[in-house]
């Protein structure tokens, strides 16, 4: 097991590097210039040249990438072009905020998706199945930002029950486990949970349906096993696949939803990436994507290990 972990960790390094290089190239292929976000539009050419030189943007692209990589290998994520600040503290706080939001969304979306999917799979072809499928399709199809805005209008503007934006009541961004802070989490977490809920529902419906049609279930039924006992077997067989889907979804949630975080002014990685893209803040973009890709790889590894624990066949 330890060698598996070590091997997978090693594999993740070239993946992260390739992702970073790909991202670096994409940013440079796209039109636009970080200078446009730093200087006023009427900045004269000599000023632009001097600022480019100060930030190393005048160097050839391979050299720029090499310098960035050299610093990364020393644990230095560099500084933002837009703010001049170190990237790591900003990225750290964004990751923490997105983690809170992702876990809250998962805590809503995964159990609901599991419930709807299992019930739909167990009662295929019935109105319960159709209802669950309807919810799943709606969850996957409804645009996040639209749902977010509708919820803000209802729960913040009309009813005034919940705050409409931010991660904390005083604008401090500091997190605490009390209702004042939790209330800020409710609307974005619900909004963000609908997609994983829909996907988990669809997946579980298929898995449960398939398992219920398998020979060993027929055998167990024939031997007189009751519904509760049967479901235990179904859950055990469905768990590895369900876990894989949920792990993947959690990875997506950790990437941060640009739209949801923008609508709710939630200071997570989605908002950080969004700003970095529009400002062409290349160091922030590269470092954030690198850290997120490492997280994604780590999460996949954790899911694989959990699957192996649940299903001995996966260990082979």
């Amino acid at each position, binding site marked *: 097991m330890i060698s598996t972990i070590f091997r997978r960790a090693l594999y993740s390094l070239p993946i992260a590097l390739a992702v970073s290089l790909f991202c670096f190239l994409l940013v440079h292929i796209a*039109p*636009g*210039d970080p*200078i*446009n*976000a*730093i*200087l*006023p*539009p*009427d*900045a*004269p*050419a*000599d*000023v*632009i040249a*001097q*600022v480019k030189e*100060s*930030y190393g943007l005048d160097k050839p692209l391979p050299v720029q990438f090499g310098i960035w990589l050299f610093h990364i290998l020393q644990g230095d994520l560099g*500084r933002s072009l*837009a*703010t*001049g*600040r*170190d990237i790591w*503290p*900003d990225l750290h*706080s*964004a990751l923490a905020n997105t983690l809170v939001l992702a876990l809250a969304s998962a805590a809503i979306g995964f159990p609901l998706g599991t419930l709807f999917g299992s019930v739909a799979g167990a009662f295929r072809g019935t109105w319960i199945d159709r209802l669950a499928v309807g919810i799943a399709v709606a969850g996957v199809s409804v645009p996040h930002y639209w749902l977010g*805005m509708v919820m*803000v*209008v209802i729960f*913040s*503007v009309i009813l*005034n029950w919940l*705050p*409409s*934006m*931010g*991660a904390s009541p*005083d*604008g*401090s*961004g*500091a997190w605490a486990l009390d209702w004042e802070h939790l209330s800020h989490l409710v609307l974005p977490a619900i909004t963000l949970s609908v997609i994983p809920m829909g996907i988990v529902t669809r997946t579980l419906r298929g898995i449960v349906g398939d398992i219920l049609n398998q020979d060993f279930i027929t055998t167990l039924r024939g031997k007189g096993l009751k519904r509760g006992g049967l479901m235990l077997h179904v859950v055990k067989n469905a768990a590895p696949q369900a876990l894989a889907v949920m792990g993947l979804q959690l990875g997506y949630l950790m990437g941060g939803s640009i739209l949801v975080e*923008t*609508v*709710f*002014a939630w*200071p997570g990685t989605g*908002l*950080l990436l*969004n*700003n970095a893209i*529009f*400002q*062409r803040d290349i160091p922030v973009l590269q470092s954030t994507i690198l850290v997120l890709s490492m997280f994604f790889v780590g999460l996949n590894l954790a899911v694989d290990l959990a699957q192996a624990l649940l299903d001995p066949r996966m260990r082979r």
Partner: protein
Amino acid sequence: MRKLLLAATLSLVAVTAQAEKVLRIAMTAADVPTTTGLPNNGFEGMRFLGYPIFEGLVLWDLSSADKLAGLRPGLAESWEQDKADPKTWIFHLRHGVKFHDGTDFNADAVMFNMERFFNKDSPQFEPAAGGITRARAPLLASYKKIDDFTVAISTTRPASYFPFMMVYPLFTSPASFEAAGKDWAKVALLPAAGTGPFKISKFVPRVSVELEKFDGYWNKSGMAHLDKVVLLPMPEANTRMAALRSGQVDWIEVPPPDGLESLKSAGFKITTGSYPHVWPWFFNIGATNSPVADVRVRQALNYCIDREGLVSLLAGTAEPSVGWLKASDPNFGHPANHYKLDPAKGKALLAEAGFTAAKPLTFKAMISPSGSGQMLPMPMNEFLQQSLKENCNVDVSFEVVEWNTLLGAARYVPDSPNLKGSMVINVSSPSSDVSVMSRYFTSANFSPAGFNFEHWKDDEFESALAKLESATDPTEISAMTQKLHERLVDNPPWLYIVHDLNPRAMSTKVTNFVSPQSWFIDLARVDMK
């Protein structure tokens, strides 16, 4: 007895807490503007993280809503042009000014900051702040300390309007830089000390910044009325509106125009005010075979658009623009052309230039779907497209690019392939004073060296500007300014479309707000019930 005392103490604390006046503002910026004393995020950054905290030798006079903001003494009590050398300006610094950290403001602090902005070899050089300042004060050539409270600043050529450029270098305490280990990235987190009516009391990167009233402010008549101001970046207009309506903020910048009626009916105040902003199309005059190289075409287009209709589309949050300055500005002058919707005149001019029903004028416009100061670019440009077609049979197609790309396009040479054949670009701009006019329209500033994207050259304009730059008599300066503006109207480098009216929405608790004719506001005057 102890319970009674405790209750009394708690009541006192509660009353004190209640009495604290905290104003929460949602900005349109996507991030908190930088906090080292020369903020990024354009003029919104200067509005909130600039002037309330850090000051210049010269400041904007933001006391009146009735006239275009002029200048007033700031950290310099007075200034004059050196009679022997008109390229040199002597600034007499104000005595008794303290930075928020308790250190003195003096000529050494001025020199420290000048080196920070203009000398790339100085230890305190801050590239971004230096770039921004140099872009806004391009004529500044050198500086020297004369004594502890006098400095001399020289320009590359005599320029009577140079004081307008001196509102942009803002001054940060040298002690802030020292305390942060001579690292501006760490100064940002200290926070940095300025001399303004507010000091930064708390900064949470990407989330908020809190300003606190500075009791030691030098200008006792300009002391802040509020105890605290919390500034929150909120780029999405509907999010800002919801935050206001749910009571999370007291003031929002730029509410969505289609939400104004609902905000009014919900009891919120909507403030609008004229300010020096133009939402134009820049003509690409210098391109090979450009149809807009002919002045008659540019004049024609200015007669072919329905500005009033566009204002209606924007729910009255803009006013028609018929020149670089507003028609009511004393320096508007007396141009021969009075632009308004006049399709007959527009068509006649187009026909003179060779564009008829059989051979209609056709060109491409480069626009963005959003951007700072861009108002609602998509529906506005679509309205103009329709207006030009209906009124003068002009066919306009769009090249839609992201805002960052459009900003870059303003520096391309006219025939650059990156413009993709665009004959106009839509970039909103300030129109505050002659120093801006000179940066935008002199032939020395042709792109890519400067911001004269159009490659517009007008000999009368250049001659009047040269006279204005060397003039010292206010009457002559005013006469030349009018002349400059008349040329901008009669030989238009831009299609003048609208001036934004700078809408804001705020709670009725907010009082004393004056919407000055400026991109900036005096936050110290604002109060709360």
